[in-house]
């Protein structure tokens, strides 16, 4: 099977995941009556506008009420509110996909709009920056440390790392973040406790970038603390396993220098499984981003989640759930391409 076909299958199965999530979301919304609530809010919003327009033309209050009643019925029919919720599923799916979920209750975008799509779209880059930086740094540090440690199995460093990864498995990263704030921000006053920029943000581009980096240190460290331990450990194990393979022994027996054995034989063969591990790590990081952003008030989608929960903002939560799934699937697909092009064996 060719490369394209493999990727097509993976792509389709990820699309299926997105679709299943979407379906689950709209069914839960319909069955619990939340979709009714959202659509009714829509209707009353439109009615309010119509009332304003009509009250200019129709003077008689009774006439006005009658006309409005007719409009209301029309609108309810248009939105499908006269039918049970399961007839509205396709329409609801369309709404979620288009982020056409009306307005949020209290939360607004930075520019003041309270349209759900506006609020979310401007937050996406902030989350993507944070997660990408943290994942790339973790991959860099995790893999190189793992490989290094694999060459010194049983050493003190090796044992420390093993304990570190065991502790990191049991450590809630968001709590680590809170402790970071307590130590570095409250006691030592070294780093800002949260946000993306100081208030007011510096105007000069260079100072602005510096300010951003200063604010990013703790959130990135927190995200890394959550994933790094596991990655070092897994990279170490994979490299160790590959190093015990026969073809590595054969290369050594040929008298190849250790440097070349390491680079051409061990590392090349270890890359695909390590990459698989990172692919799955992205999932953890996205979930971790929700918590980390909350702790550091980093204005991304994760913090928005928390704000929406606190404000009981249903449309926002629905839209965020969908966008998170979508971004996750997209990230998975990009890494899948990388993965398939690196490891010829995966082409099934």
């Amino acid at each position, binding site marked *: 099977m060719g490369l394209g076909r493999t990727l097509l299958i993976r792509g389709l199965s990820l699309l299926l995941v997105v679709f299943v999530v979407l379906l689950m979301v709209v069914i839960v919304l319909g069955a619990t009556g939340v979709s009714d609530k959202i659509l009714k809010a829509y209707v009353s919003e439109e009615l309010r506008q119509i009332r304003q327009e009509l009250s200019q033309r129709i003077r008689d209050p009774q006439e006005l009420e009658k006309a409005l009643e007719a409009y209301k019925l029309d609108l309810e029919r248009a939105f499908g509110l006269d039918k049970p919720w399961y007839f509205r599923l396709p329409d609801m799916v369309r709404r979620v996909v288009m982020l056409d979920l009306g307005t949020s209750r209290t939360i607004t975008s930075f520019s003041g709009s309270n349209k759900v799509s506006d609020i979310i779209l401007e937050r996406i880059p902030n989350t993507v920056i944070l997660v990408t930086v943290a994942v790339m740094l973790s991959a860099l540090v995790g893999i190189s440390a793992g490989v290094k440690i694999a060459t010194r199995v049983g050493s003190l460093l090796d044992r420390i790392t093993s304990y570190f990864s065991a502790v990191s498995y049991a450590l*809630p990263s968001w709590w680590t973040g809170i402790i970071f704030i307590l130590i570095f921000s409250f006691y030592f006053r070294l780093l800002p406790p949260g946000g993306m920029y100081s208030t007011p943000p510096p105007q000069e581009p260079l100072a602005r970038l510096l300010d951003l980096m200063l604010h990013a240190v703790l959130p990135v460290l927190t995200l890394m603390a959550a994933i790094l331990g596991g990655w070092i450990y897994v990279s170490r194990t994979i490299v160790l396993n590959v190093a015990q393979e026969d073809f590595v022994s054969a290369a050594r027996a040929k008298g190849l220098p250790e440097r070349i054995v390491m680079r051409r034989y061990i590392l090349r063969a270890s890359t695909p499984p390590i990459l698989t591990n990172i692919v799955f790590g992205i999932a953890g990081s996205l979930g971790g981003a929700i918590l980390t952003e909350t702790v550091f008030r980093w204005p991304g989608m994760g913090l928005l989640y928390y704000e929406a*929960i606190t404000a009981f903002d249903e449309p926002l939560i629905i839209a965020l759930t969908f966008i998170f799934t979508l971004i996750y699937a997209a990230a998975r697909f990009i890494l899948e391409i990388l993965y398939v092009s690196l490891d010829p064996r995966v082409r099934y």
Partner: protein
Amino acid sequence: MAETRREAWRVFWSSNISKLGITLLAILVIVSLYVVFTYPLDFGLKYWNNPSHWVDYPKGVPPEWTKYFTSENVTEHRIYTIYVPSESRFVESAGLYIKRYSITFDYQYDEFPSFLSFTVFNVTFSREPPIIFLEISRPDGVSARIYTLAVPGPQEGEEAPYMRYSETPFRVFLSGDPSVAQQLSRMLKRDFDISLTPTEINTIGPEKILFGKPDVGKNFTVLKGVYRVDVVLASGDEEDSVGYVRFVVAGNVYGWVGTDSLGRDLAVGLLFGFPVALLIGVVTTTLTTAVGTSAGIISGYIGGKTDDIIQRIADIINNIPLLPILIFLIFILKPSIWLIVFLLVAFGWPGLTIIVRSMILQLRTSQLVEAEVALGASKWRIMFRHIFPQIAPFIFAQMIFATPTAILAEAALSFLGLGDPSLPTWGQILNYGFRDGGVYVGYWWWIVPPGLLIVLTAITFVFLALGLEPVVNPRLRRFK
């Protein structure tokens, strides 16, 4: 079988990490049992999340033992509750019965109390409504009547004896009450010749004036010595009585772990978190393992269409980003502990299923299974009587290893504000501490202990899993 079990236990027990794990587990279980037997079931709603239960506790103060690390003598929390009057007499000239409840204490702290409050419970009278006075005598001889309570008289249709404040006690927050400030303003004028308006007194803090002597300007320094608080019940009938009177001199430290900004004793809440965390961890992983293993065995052994369907479902669920979907479902369906457990199981089983299936694929071709088939054993019998026991040790280790994930997931959800409001957990305490800004003002006793307990519980199971590894995977035994 018994022999192998003993051997497995020997291997397990021989490592220090298992001993540590077992010890920690024993502590967790003992504390949980203590809580289960001593706490009321409705603890969350009736006590923990009920602010009126915590009014007489100091707000946001560190644990009591921190006083050993400061040079100052920090005020401890004192609650004085008196049930029996120390003096009862009849004043003929006024025709009144006087009952006096006296509290005497030696105040030797370097700091002012954080607040003062006064409570009266269950006033009973048969004719005229009594009057209650609160008087304080200070070490310097100054005394003042700082509060007067006129008990409301009988209403139409009510019959004697009349009961007042028998359901909810009458409570005055003395540090902030306008009439107290007025009385203190009068006391300062009379005894110290200082003019301060009641508003100024409330800004300084009535407790500082009552427990202090005037310094330069509007400053007060602590007046140490013996104080006497008298609560006087003046009534027209000898039988009239008071259930109890209570005077609170609020401290600046409290208990083992301190209090949060509502005055809740954190030690009490943290203890309650033990059984909840264990329950969530154990129930979730047991169910996840049961579902995951059964699905894996069926998928691997039966094969064909069943296998395809199970693997497809497992693959889809395995690829759903967990936290966003959990947030969505719990938010829409309203938080409850059983919903959280159900969802963690519903989205947690596929990982195990995929591993178990691959193990079964190897086992189903073994000679043992072939022999069973030849003997005519049913599919179910083979799967669960013959195949399952072979992978059971591995499954058990997996179960222990998965427990921290469930505990951490619940803590994360609680931290996001999606915890079950009827069951306080460590995550919820952290959520409240974070939301209330406890981190930014350095309330470490509110932030550090709950997180440490989460880590402790999670790491207990990590230790157990590490200890089990050489049992399950004999190749690792060479280190012994």
